[in-house]
């Protein structure tokens, strides 16, 4: 609980420093809005030309897009320390100062960065979710809401976990960030569409290694009354937990990697 309070306070302080430059902040937030709007426009153009995708209606596609967008940008907003700032934390030696404080390193990294500009991307995602929900005629009930929340939360953990691969590479000062982007940003691009449109190797990748299919597609399909993979209904409640598993594994690896941290000379 104490940790959560610390996190909220830290984020509050970071917000304060972001707002020291209000015009820049507003401008960048708008730019983010247009960017994510552009991504959404692509889906609209696809629906306009192709109408449906392997049995998924336009509404379904918007819904998938919305879940991905909300999850991805929530992670970028609150997990900025991992998704964006970590390399600079290593380079500038901020990681050293984290290591000499009596708190978890990961906690401090997460406390050390936030990206409130992403709020506009999240707004686009929410709009897509609402649009998708209306067009797909989803009959909402408390259970479905719960599954949606679970799905988004677990997807966030999954995305955070995947970005931690980059952080781990960074600790070992390996410069292969672009390769990791394939699974993080590539995962976002691929998995904002239903997973079953992809050939087997890609499907396997996003089910077993970076299980977006489990945290996102299986529950979303159930919410839209279209079971995915033909799995039984209860799987929609269980499979999202794989996001937490990935996060736990990556956290363990992260701490293992810190033992080999070299710190930049001086």
């Amino acid at each position, binding site marked *: 609980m*104490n940790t959560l*309070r*610390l996190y909220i*306070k*830290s984020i509050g*302080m970071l917000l*304060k*420093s972001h707002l*020291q430059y209000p015009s820049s902040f507003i401008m960048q937030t708008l730019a983010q809005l247009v960017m994510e709007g552009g991504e959404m426009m692509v889906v609209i153009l696809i629906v306009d030309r192709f109408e449906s995708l392997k049995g998924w209606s336009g509404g379904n596609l918007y819904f998938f897009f919305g879940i991905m967008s909300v999850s991805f940008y929530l992670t970028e907003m609150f997990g900025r320390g991992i998704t964006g700032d970590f390399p600079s934390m290593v380079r*500038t*030696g*901020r990681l*050293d*100062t984290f*290591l*000499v*404080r*009596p*708190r*978890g390193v990961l906690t*401090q990294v997460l406390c050390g960065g936030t990206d409130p500009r992403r709020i506009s991307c999240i707004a686009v995602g929410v709009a897509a979710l609402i649009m998708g929900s209306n067009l797909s005629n989803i009959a909402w009930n408390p259970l479905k809401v719960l599954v949606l929340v679970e799905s988004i939360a677990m997807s966030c953990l999954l995305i955070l976990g995947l970005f931690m691969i980059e952080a781990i590479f960074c600790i070992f000062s390996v410069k292969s960030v672009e390769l990791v982007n394939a699974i993080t940003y590539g995962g976002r691009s691929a998995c904002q569409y239903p997973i079953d449109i992809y050939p087997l190797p890609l499907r396997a990748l996003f089910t077993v290694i970076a299980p977006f299919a489990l945290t996102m597609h299986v529950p979303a399909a159930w919410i839209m009354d279209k079971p995915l993979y033909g799995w039984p209904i209860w799987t929609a409640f269980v499979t999202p937990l794989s996001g937490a598993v990935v996060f736990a594994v990556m956290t363990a690896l992260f701490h293992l990697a810190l*033992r*080999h*941290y*070299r*710190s930049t*000379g*001086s």
Partner: protein
Amino acid sequence: MSYIEVKNLKKNFTVKKKHEKGKLLREKEIVNALKEVSFSVDKGELVGYIGPNGAGKSTTVKILSGILTPDGGEVTVGGIVPWKERKRHVRNIGVVFGQRSQLWWDVPIIDSYMLLRDIYRIPQGDYESRLKELTSALQLEELMRTPLRLLSLGQRMRAELCGSLLHRPQLLFLDEPTIGLDAVSKLALRDFLKWENNEYGTTIMLTTHDMEDIEALCSRVMVLGHGKKLFDGKLPDLLERYDTVRNVNIKYEGTITDLRLPEGVSCSHTEDGIELSYNPTKLPTSKFLGLLQEAGNISELTLQPQNTDHMIAAMYKELDL
């Protein structure tokens, strides 16, 4: 058993060599940053840790503060192995890195302190009294509402010190604390460190390139070079060994014809006359003065001992660092 115990400490780094033509992979090289370093420090000591760049000073401090895991040897600080019980260990230490900040850049420093209070879980009462004491000792009262980025270098260092001492650490590491500071700030900083050491018996270990820091503060000095401990003792004892050169400043009446000096005497002409330095053990002073007198009529002559920086440079040179 002493407060800090270091035995046979070893740390290696693998460094990638520059890419050679015709080879697909870069070759790696192992650099021994620390080779079997041992020492112990008692509570309340003020220890200076010196050595040329790349000697392993920072590596030692980083191991002692729990940032790095060593490759061999034993370290305990107050009975705790730093990298094994990092969180328990760092509660008792404060670290100030000269060139990096642990406070938040864009917010008033008081906000940073409040966050540090939460990070270290300092009870409110302790926090308030300690903050009051530190801000008055470091003359920070006026600056509490100023964002860090607007502070001068000297003010920033004081603010950093305050931040690293809020939780009353028993051990304070300072990595080149006076780098880039003006004379007034340096003196104030040294006074403060002495005060903190006297008042609370805080053990202080500092690395520096500024010998005046060591002279002013440290009863004990350790010299590190090539990853080995080369000296451990009092500063005067260290200097005695390398205090071999005397400086002479000399002025002649009118111009001089020829000043013939034996080898080993360095000579430079300045606006203020001629600066010479010689080694009394190799060239007896009486003989040296004789040579000077032969050259012309001396109007002024001052003889000075060598300054510390020169001695250290001579030491590094002799030890081939």
